[in-house]
C-alpha cells in the first residue's frame, strides 16, 4: 500500500525568500505524481518537505508513510564504499543481489562508485531508494543528466517496479515527456514563489511507451497549457 500525502495551505520561506506559496494538494496511495516547473521554481523544496528534510513555514503537511525512498538528482553514493555497502547502509536486511539484478547491475556489487558510469550510478541511486522497500518514492530530476537511451531504460525499470510494488511516486522534473511517462497526474507550478497553477490528468493505457503517438499527442496538449500559463 502506497503512502498518502495532504498539503493544506502550505507555505515555505527561507528568510525573506518565499519559495512555496499556498499549496493545497492531496496525493492518494499508489498515485504517480509529477511536479513540472522551471529550474529554481521550488520543485526540490517541495520534495524536501515530503522527505522531512524541511518543515513548512505555514500550513499543514501530512505524510502517511512508513518508508521513504529518495532518488537524488546526483547519486550521493559513499565513494569509499562498494555498491553493496552503499545499499546496506540504508537497510541491512535488503536483498542486494535481487535488487541489483532487477536494475541490471548484477556483477557490480563489489565495485566502488567511481568504477561505474553515470547511468549505472543513477541505477544504484534508485536501487538504494528501493532497498528500504518504500511506500513513497521521491525522485528529484533523477534522469536529468542521463543520455536518452539510459534515461528511458531506467524509467522503464521504475514503471515495472511500480507495477509490482504500487508505491506512491512523486517525481519533480522540467521535462514534459518524462512527466507524462511517469505520472497519472501532473502538477504544473509557477515560477518562484511556486504556486500550483494547473493539474493535468494523464490518461495513457498501460504499459506505456515512451514514444507512443498517444504520449506525443498529450505532450503537445501539455505544451499548450504550459505556454498559456
Amino acid at each position, binding site marked *: 500500500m502506497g503512502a498518502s500525502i495532504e498539503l493544506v495551505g502550505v507555505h515555505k520561506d527561507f528568510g525573506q525568500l518565499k519559495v512555496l506559496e499556498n499549496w493545497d494538494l492531496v496525493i492518494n496511495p499508489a498515485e504517480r505524481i509529477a511536479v513540472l516547473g522551471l529550474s529554481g521554481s521550488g520543485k526540490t523544496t517541495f520534495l524536501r518537505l515530503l*522527505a*522531512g*528534510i524541511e518543515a513548512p513555514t505555514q500550513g499543514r503537511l501530512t505524510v502517511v508513510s512508513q518508508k*521513504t525512498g*529518495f532518488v*537524488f538528482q*546526483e547519486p*550521493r553514493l*559513499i565513494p*569509499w*564504499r*562498494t555498491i553493496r*555497502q552503499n545499499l546496506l*547502509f*540504508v*537497510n541491512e536486511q535488503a536483498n542486494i543481489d535481487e535488487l541489483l539484478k532487477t536494475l541490471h547491475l548484477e556483477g557490480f556489487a563489489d565495485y*566502488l562508485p567511481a568504477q561505474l558510469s553515470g547511468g549505472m550510478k543513477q541505477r544504484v541511486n534508485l536501487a*538504494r531508494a528501493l532497498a*528500504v522497500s518504500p511506500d513513497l518514492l521521491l525522485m528529484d530530476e533523477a534522469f536529468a543528466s542521463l543520455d536518452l537511451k539510459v534515461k528511458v531504460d531506467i524509467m522503464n525499470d521504475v514503471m515495472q517496479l511500480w507495477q509490482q510494488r504500487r508505491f506512491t511516486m512523486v517525481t519533480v522534473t522540467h521535462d514534459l515527456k518524462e512527466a507524462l511517462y511517469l505520472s497519472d497526474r501532473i502538477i504544473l507550478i509557477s515560477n518562484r514563489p511556486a504556486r500550483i497553477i494547473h493539474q493535468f490528468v494523464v490518461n495513457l493505457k498501460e504499459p506505456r511507451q515512451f514514444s507512443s503517438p498517444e504520449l506525443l499527442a498529450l505532450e503537445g496538449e501539455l505544451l499548450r497549457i504550459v505556454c498559456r500559463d
Partner: protein
Amino acid sequence: MKGLSRALAGIIIFLICWYILSLFINRVIVPSPAETLGLLGQHLVNPRMLEAALQTAWKVGLALVLVLLLGLILGLLLGLSETFYDMFRPIVMFIQAVPVVSWLSLVIFAWGVGWRGPIFITFVSLLPTAVLTTVSGIRSLDKDLLEMARVYRVPFKKVFHYIYLGSLLPFIAAIIDVTIGQAWKVVLVSEYLAGGSGLGVEIFNARMVVDSAGAWSVTLMACLLGIATERLVKYCLRGMSSRWGQA
C-alpha cells in the same frame, strides 16, 4: 626502479657535498662523512646505543598514540559542536603558541629529569595539529551524504562509521604524516634538555665532549629510525584503509 636509482643518486650527491664541505670547514663543525658513518655503524651494534634508541622510540610511540587518540576525540567534539569549537579553540591556539622551552620548565618543576617530560612536551606540542586537522576533516564532510543519511533515517552510529570515519581517514593519514617526523624531533630536544635516557641524551653527551661526529652519527641514527617508523606506520595505514573499504 627508476625512483630508487634517482634517490641513490641524490644520496651520493649529498655525501659528495658533505665531503667537500668537511675538507674546508673545521671538523668540530662539519665532521667527515666517513668518520660519522663509521661511528653510526658502531652505534648500530652497540647495546648502549640500541638501548638509547629504544628509549627514544617508545617515548615517540606513546606520545603519538596519545596525540592521535586525544586529538581525534577532541577534534571530533570541536568539529561536531560549534559551542565546543568556540569554547576550546582559544585554548588549542594558546597551547599551539606556547614554546617548547616553556613546557620544559614546567615539566622540570613537576617531574624533574626523566621520561615523563619528553612524552608530555611532545604530546602538547603536537596535540593542536591533530585537533585542528581533525576539525578540518569534519568540516569538509560531504553535506549531501549526511543529508542522504538523514533522509533514510540511518542511525548516527552507522553514519559515523560509514561516512565520518571514512572521510576522516585521509586527515588521520595527514596527522600521522605531519606529527611522526615532528615527534622524533621534539622527543630528541626534550631528552637533550630534560631526559634521563635516550638518543637526545646521547647527543647531549657527545656535545659535552665536543664530539661532533658522535652527535651527527646519533642524529643520523634518529633520522633513520624516524623514516623507518614513518614508513611502517604508512604501510599499516594503507592496510587499514583498504580494510576500511571492505568492512
